[in-house]
């Protein structure tokens, strides 16, 4: 039985003082013991040198691209960039080719990730067949093969009656329905936020109301269906407002946003910078402030990476033709840590909740998301003391560009451990 002893770390978990160093023993892929002093003669030792020990991050929104888009990315490259960025569990978009909309596709991709990935992969089953929003997919069949939530990826279901039926039907299985919110007609041809910069650049804009009307609609549908809903990739302040109200009215709704939506605004797209072409688009400083407020008061439960690894050749073209995409797995924690802990009043524990504990709760991953005895040994050691320069050219991901290229950020993952196995060690 292999053992791993992690020494001299400040544990980020409820009940632990972040100023004190602890030792943590991993045995049989689980956290076995946490104490001030642990003795073991057989265990492999990692000296944490006083850095933070956080639970491995769980990403609720990331694109795998395999099967069907392997020229962009695949299981191996996505896993490696996840390890680099501190993610030990990924839930992948069902928008593969073919879509994850039948049990056989679920089985196929599950078997591939088991073979090729060192980290935990979970799958979304698509809500509608081919993620096209018209016909409900065989969710029960997919759930029986291991799907842990339902989603149509980046596609928003336009027909309210279909979503209403989906929400009602999903209650049989007690899993969340994850929806992306964008009114197709309102954001027609829009490739950046509709506002000052869309006018300045002469580009069609996607207005805030395209997201907010659908957020409101989805929450209302969830209320009357009395079902669980998770709104993904919240990008506007108005959406936060709707979500906050829904909580007060007892709607069973959760939500996530991505680091770019609380750190970067629409001005990044100036000069037709296609690196800033993301879906949903970057909004305004007001939205950034309101999203941070939503994160602070718990209206937004989760921070996901939103990793969409379009390669640079599909970015190097006319803005309207360029791909939507962001290379985010390797920067998500650093961006979040710097924006919320260093430049704001969040604690590392708040971040661990948003990026590990809450996703685990929402997805029903009972042995993940926290550092406690008996939990899975998915752990990361994070440098909260020193800033590290982002150099996109050195990304493990094939998408070697970043909105944060050249920035000095805190919260770099030094060690990644998944199921007790050391996958990355640069300490």
């Amino acid at each position, binding site marked *: 039985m292999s053992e791993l002893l992690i020494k001299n770390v400040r544990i980020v978990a409820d009940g632990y003082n972040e100023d004190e160093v602890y030792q943590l023993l991993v045995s049989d892929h689980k956290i076995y013991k946490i104490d001030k002093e642990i003795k073991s003669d057989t265990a492999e030792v990692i000296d944490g040198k006083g850095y933070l020990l956080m639970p491995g991050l769980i990403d609720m929104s990331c694109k795998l691209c395999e099967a069907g888009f392997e020229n962009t990315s695949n299981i191996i490259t996505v896993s490696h960039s996840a390890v680099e960025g501190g993610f030990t569990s990924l839930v992948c978009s069902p928008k593969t080719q073919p879509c994850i909309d039948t049990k056989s596709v679920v089985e196929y991709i599950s078997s591939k990730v088991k073979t090729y990935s060192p980290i935990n992969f979970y799958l979304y089953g698509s809500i509608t067949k081919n993620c096209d929003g018209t016909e409900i997919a065989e969710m029960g069949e997919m759930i029986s093969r291991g799907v842990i939530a339902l989603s149509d990826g980046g596609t928003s279901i336009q027909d309210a009656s279909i979503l209403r039926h989906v929400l009602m039907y999903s209650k049989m299985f007690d899993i969340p329905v994850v929806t992306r919110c964008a009114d197709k007609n309102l954001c027609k041809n829009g490739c950046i936020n509709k506002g000052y910069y*869309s*006018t*300045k*650049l*002469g*580009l069609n804009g996607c207005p805030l109301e395209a997201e907010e009307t659908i957020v409101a609609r989805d929450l209302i549908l969830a209320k009357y269906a009395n079902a669980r809903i998770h709104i993904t990739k919240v990008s506007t302040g108005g959406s936060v407002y709707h979500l906050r109200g829904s909580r007060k009215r007892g709607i069973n709704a959760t939500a996530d946003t991505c680091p770019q939506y609380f750190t970067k605004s629409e001005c990044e797209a100036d*000069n037709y910078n296609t690196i800033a072409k993301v879906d949903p688009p970057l909004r305004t400083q007001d939205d950034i402030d309101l999203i941070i407020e939503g994160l602070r008061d718990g209206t937004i439960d989760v921070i996901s990476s939103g990793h969409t690894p379009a390669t640079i050749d599909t970015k190097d*073209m*006319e803005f309207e*033709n360029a791909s939507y995409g962001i290379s985010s797995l390797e920067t998500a924690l650093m961006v979040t840590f710097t924006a919320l802990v260093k430049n704001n009043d969040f604690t590392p524990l708040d971040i661990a909740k948003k990026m590990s504990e809450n996703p685990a709760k929402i997805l029903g991953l009972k042995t993940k998301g926290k550092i406690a005895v008996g939990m899975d040994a998915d752990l990361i050691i994070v440098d909260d003391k020193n800033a590290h320069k982002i150099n996109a050219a050195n990304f493990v991901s094939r998408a070697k560009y970043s909105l944060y290229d050249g920035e000095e950020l805190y919260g770099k993952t030094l060690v990644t451990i998944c199921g007790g196995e050391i996958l990355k060690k640069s300490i």
Partner: protein
Amino acid sequence: MSFSRKDFISLQDITKDEIHDILETAETMKFVLGQKNKKTPYLNGKSVIILFYERSVRAKLSYELAAQYLGANIVDITVPGVEDRHENINDMGRTIEQMGGDFIICRHPMAGSAKLLAEKVKAGVLNAGDGINEDPSQALLDLMTIKHIKGGFDGLKVTIVGDVMNSRVARSNIWGLLKLGVNVCVVAPPTMIPTHLDKFGVKVYYNLKDAAKNSDVIMSLRLQAEDSYGSRLASFNEYKDYFKVTPEILDYAKPDCIIMHPGSPDRRVEIDSGIIDSDRCITDDQITNGVAIRMALLYLLSMGRRDMDE
């Protein structure tokens, strides 16, 4: 002379002095256009590629004549299928470069395309319209016309009427006029006005009479095909009731107010027939000035290149 650039892409990133330089040079070119022998040697031995990704008749003719009067070798290409990623502008630019093109006059249905091309090639790039973003030479010819008639720009009020949202000429005019200290107003149904335009210093109206008050210039824009507007507009029939430039509207403007239009105004909807045929409507001047402006731009770009080469 402050104009020394490799490319001419937009009126947003150009200075007031540069605009004046171009307008002055265009006056010289206009003089050349009035001569019996219009041929000049400024672009001898140079090649000009007219690269259009959209169908066009008048603009192309204007550019082509401008380049010919300057003595350049001209190739005219119309590329179909801009949606096709294999036909992207970077590859086309590289191809033209390898074939020795000195200037590329580019019209493309996507905003920012000319800027992207300019960053990729050594040839001088002239933006002849990028999506709904800008058509800077078309705006310069409007500025030249205004300057010619009004003598200058200080304190003028220019009112732009119509579909600003879809008009790259309007955008270029707005950026240029604002730089020259002009009081710029737009008037149209709210569905035809780009968002946040007021933040740039433009006054936005929904009522033509209010907007026309004390105007020195009224610029009417060309409407797109009626069915392309969908729910943005009830009908042209209704549009004309509120936004057609009529003698009654001109009563609100200054007595010497001039009426401009980018070409072939719709007499039923955009401008009253009587006005079009009057001497207040100066679309013919605009056409001549268009050639002069394009000659000036090609000339100045070639000078800028020479400076850079030296």
